């Protein structure tokens, strides 16, 4: 049996390859290599800008959540069990329309008598009399 040497193996391998294939045998590693300085910089800058965008968006999100929390916090009324009620109890300022108007007018009616005190007849001295 003829012993096939290493170099013959390589030649056989090359012979079996189809050179009509569209696939390039030798790829241009140099142009896509991450080791290339320019490409490395571009890639790093892209990554950096994505990171910055993510951090900025997270920051905005946290601020928005805080604002929502602060605005909702006052409206949530604790129940007797110490839990928070799921929906805020409507107050005078949150009820729009006719009912709000009516409640304001009820306050007006209550206050009319008090307003009248401002028109009270002035307290005057009527005994302007000098008798020696």
């Amino acid at each position, binding site marked *: 049996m003829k012993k096939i040497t290493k170099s013959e193996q390589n030649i056989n391998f090359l012979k079996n390859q189809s050179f009509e294939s569209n696939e390039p045998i030798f790829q241009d590693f140099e142009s896509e290599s991450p080791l290339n300085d320019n490409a490395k910089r571009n890639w790093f800058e892209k990554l950096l800008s994505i990171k910055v965008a993510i951090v900025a968006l997270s920051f905005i999100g946290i601020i928005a959540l805080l604002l929502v929390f602060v605005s909702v916090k006052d409206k949530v009324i604790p129940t007797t069990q110490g839990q928070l009620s799921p929906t805020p109890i409507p107050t005078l300022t949150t009820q729009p329309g*006719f009912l709000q108007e*009516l409640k304001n007018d009820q306050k*007006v009616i209550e206050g009319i*008598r008090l307003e*009248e005190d401002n028109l009270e*007849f002035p307290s*005057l001295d009527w005994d*302007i009399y*000098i008798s020696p």
Partner: protein
Amino acid sequence: MKMRYILAFVVLFFPGLIFAQEKYRSDFLYNFDLYRQDQEQYRINKLSYLDFQSIDSKSKAIASQRQVIVSRNLVLKTYFQHLYEQLQLSKNDTQDYSQIKQMVDSVIADLDDMNESIQAIDDLDSLNSFSDLIEENRVYYNNLSKLIKDVIYFNKLNKLHLKYGTDIVQKLKEEYGQAEISLYYDRDLQNSLSSINSQNEVIVQAIINFPEEELMDERSKSQNSLITEINDYHNQLQNHLRIIQEIITNDFKLNR
């Protein structure tokens, strides 16, 4: 640039526009303050004259007595002007208070006349008699002020009556988009409506036909009955608004 001018105009003139409606109020407060100063001076000069009986102290006492009467008349004049102004502000366009206007105008003219004629009086006895004469009007001034205040009070209630005393169901239906109200509230609402409407009419007639001679009476029956009716009407209007609130809460709001 235009915006800046508009803003400057609003800042400069807006407070003026608000207070322009109440021009007699500050006059009244100012005159009341002057009166208090004059009254204090009168008290000091009167005591000084009673202690020393000197000619100088007597002339000072007479001068300060005259001055305090003039100041008091000015307080009354500006008070009635202020009160009438408030009446005008409280009324609606259709109301006519020509009778009250005549009474107020007459009081103001009398007070002006008194302040003019008092300048010629320079002896103590005449001043004392003059002061007595003015004091006789005290009940009238007091009753007139009460009557005007009652009418102002009623007018404020009447503005709410105009809003809630007619076609309230239609307004509620427009607001809450519902076709019906329950029979229970419908009956209550109709009863309270007819009650406040008739009471309103009674008070309007009582004001228009108020007998002027009653203002001279210290215990005026007409005045007492008017204020009782207005107070009663006040309570009825409050009750009426409560019924409307219940309709919104129970009939409309829950089914919305």
